[in-house]
């Protein structure tokens, strides 16, 4: 207790030096905290938006080869798929059958590009529960009704009932034009959700040049994230035994996203009729997780590299401190301080330095995150994938922060350990007679 108090006060003896060392520690902590905060929000945002957007965990998409060799997304008849799902024992909470178009919406000279999901609102009752309405209603949706995310509605300056022009392509790639009536506006569901709107599948199919009972993606929303890959494997086995299906790719097998790897494979293949692709949300997010893993490793490496440099400073400083206070050490030893207590005095000082630096670093990082979070990058920013509502967002895992602070405290103590040990080993007579 006494040693701790003395160590704390000793920090204030050379304020400039303490501020420099503490500042270096704070800087290191700040950098890694920013990276961690960014990485944390990155997973959050991307997962949230993907699950919103894709409405499920296990997906089946149908692919046809056009005469020109293009891959066309279509499911013409899903009776065999439903049979396969049953045989595979897929217990989905919800099943959705969706089409989707990529379109450019125009209103009063303003344009917004976004994906429009064609949804069977009567079958997907859960969607109505999940979408938070800002205005309008999902009941009595007109055939050409569209549900827009709030940022897009704001950007276009539309209100409920306004009619929009949409320019798009059919499923086979022909230019097509249509009109939507704004039926509802939903609160911003996150990064990717904010560039995705919902409309009736019948009308979307019409724009895509699909028949009313055709669609593009069958998704199963499982009760939990667990077992998603196994469910995908079982479904794939059952689909393969009944229909044409692409090989499933394991995440990271070809050093990348398994979904993209499957699509690349399809480009080189030729087949006739519809061939099915079975994927999972984990497959789609494989690369997101890889990016996060890279960020995690990067933050640790940066921390270690920065601290290797900082540790040299700490070791040298504590060596200097030992010589500056050598007579004081001799005095304390003479009046009864044990070697261990001298070492403790130095280590406490280092610990306080580390903790003080860590607190300052976390405070500065918080301010930076708050400040950066205020900047509006806009929804059409090229950074949109990592943004939330056009803003950078951060999320800190406190256990991870505590872990980093512990590492920093440990490294600081390690750096101070050898000077502390030298100080403890000083012969009191030598220490007392050394003039500084």
């Amino acid at each position, binding site marked *: 207790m006494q040693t701790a108090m*003395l160590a704390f006060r000793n920090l204030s003896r050379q304020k400039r030096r303490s501020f420099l060392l503490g500042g270096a520690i704070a800087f290191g902590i700040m950098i890694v905290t920013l990276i961690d905060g960014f990485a944390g929000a990155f997973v959050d945002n991307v997962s949230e938006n993907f699950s919103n957007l894709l409405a499920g965990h296990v997906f089946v998409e149908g692919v046809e080869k056009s005469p020109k060799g293009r891959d066309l997304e279509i499911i013409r008849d899903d009776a065999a798929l439903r049979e396969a799902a049953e045989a595979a024992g897929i217990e989905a909470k919800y099943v959705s059958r969706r089409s989707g178009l990529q379109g450019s919406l125009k209103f009063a000279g303003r344009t917004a590009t976004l994906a429009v999901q064609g949804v069977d609102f009567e079958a997907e009752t859960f969607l109505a529960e999940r979408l938070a309405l800002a205005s309008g209603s999902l009941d009595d949706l007109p055939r050409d009704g569209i549900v827009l995310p709030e940022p897009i509605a704001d950007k276009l300056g539309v209100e409920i009932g306004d009619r929009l022009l949409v320019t798009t392509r059919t499923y086979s790639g022909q230019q097509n034009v249509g009109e939507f009536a704004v039926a509802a506006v939903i609160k911003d569901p996150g990064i990717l959700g904010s560039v995705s709107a919902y409309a009736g599948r019948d009308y979307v199919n019409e724009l895509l040049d699909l028949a009313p009972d055709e669609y593009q993606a069958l998704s199963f929303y499982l009760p939990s994230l667990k077992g998603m890959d196994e469910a995908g494997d079982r479904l794939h086995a059952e689909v393969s035994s009944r229909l044409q299906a692409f090989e499933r790719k394991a995440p990271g097998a070809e050093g990348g996203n398994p979904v993209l790897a499957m699509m690349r494979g399809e480009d080189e293949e030729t087949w006739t009729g519809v061939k099915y692709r079975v994927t999972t949300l984990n497959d789609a997010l494989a690369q997101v997780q890889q990016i996060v893993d890279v960020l995690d490793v990067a933050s640790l490496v940066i921390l270690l590299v920065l601290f290797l440099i900082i540790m040299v400073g700490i070791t040298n400083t504590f060596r200097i401190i030992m010589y500056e206070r050598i*007579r004081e050490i001799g*005095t304390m030893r*003479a009046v*009864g301080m*044990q070697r261990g207590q001298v070492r403790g005095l130095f280590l406490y000082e280092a610990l306080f330095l580390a903790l003080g630096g860590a607190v300052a670093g976390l405070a500065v990082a918080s301010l930076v995150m708050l400040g950066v979070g205020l900047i509006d990058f806009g929804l059409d920013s090229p950074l949109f994938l990592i943004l939330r509502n056009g803003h950078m967002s951060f999320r800190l895992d406190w256990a991870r922060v505590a872990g980093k602070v512990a590492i920093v405290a440990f490294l600081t103590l390690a750096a101070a350990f050898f000077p502390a040990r030298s100080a403890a080993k000083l*012969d009191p007579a030598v220490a*007392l007679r050394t003039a500084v």
Partner: protein
Amino acid sequence: MSIIELSEVRKTYPLGKTEVQAVKGVSFRIERGDFISIAGPSGSGKTTILNMIGLVDRPSGGEVLIEGKPTSKLGDRELTTLRHETLGFIFQSFNLIPVLNVRENVEFPLLLGAKRQPRKEAAEWVDFLIEEVGLSDWKGHRSNELSGGQRQRVAIARALVTKPKIVLADEPTANLDSATGEQIIELMKKINRDLETTFIFSTHDAKIVDIADHVVRLRDGLVTENFRRERAGAEA
């Protein structure tokens, strides 16, 4: 039994390829309650001898006995504990801890040991000592706000706080003007009488040697004189 006994104590320091014989076989005894001056010119071995009595340095030969107990075979931990419990130190340049105020400096040694006194008792004792050395109005001040004489008074109170049997003072007046120096020695003398603490101080100042009742005079690492003064009124 003498409180301290030096028996054929020698100390050599390595100096380049040769060595210096700082103390060349010194024997004398110090009795309980002594107010003893180790006198001698600069370089005669005073500091070396005080350091060995104070258990901060080890003799190269011979034995230092504290209360009849030999100390040459003790390890660092035991020596430190013995210093803490039996000895008090006063230094030529005061050696106060700059980040502590007067009261905290005096209290400091109390907080080092394994044994703890009851808080209230300890606080009263610290206050009593500060009163004794005349610094009651300076308790909250740090050493850089004090004069040399005041600093040495703090050091005296600190040396006494663990109620040691022996207080060692290596040239306690060397950094003070002569009037202040004499006051410091008088204060030590008063405490020596009041608390019956044994005081051992070194000096090369003849006027201060006169205040001691036991004098050991050194020259070139050897004892040249060892005598007791019988004073009027010091009897009984």
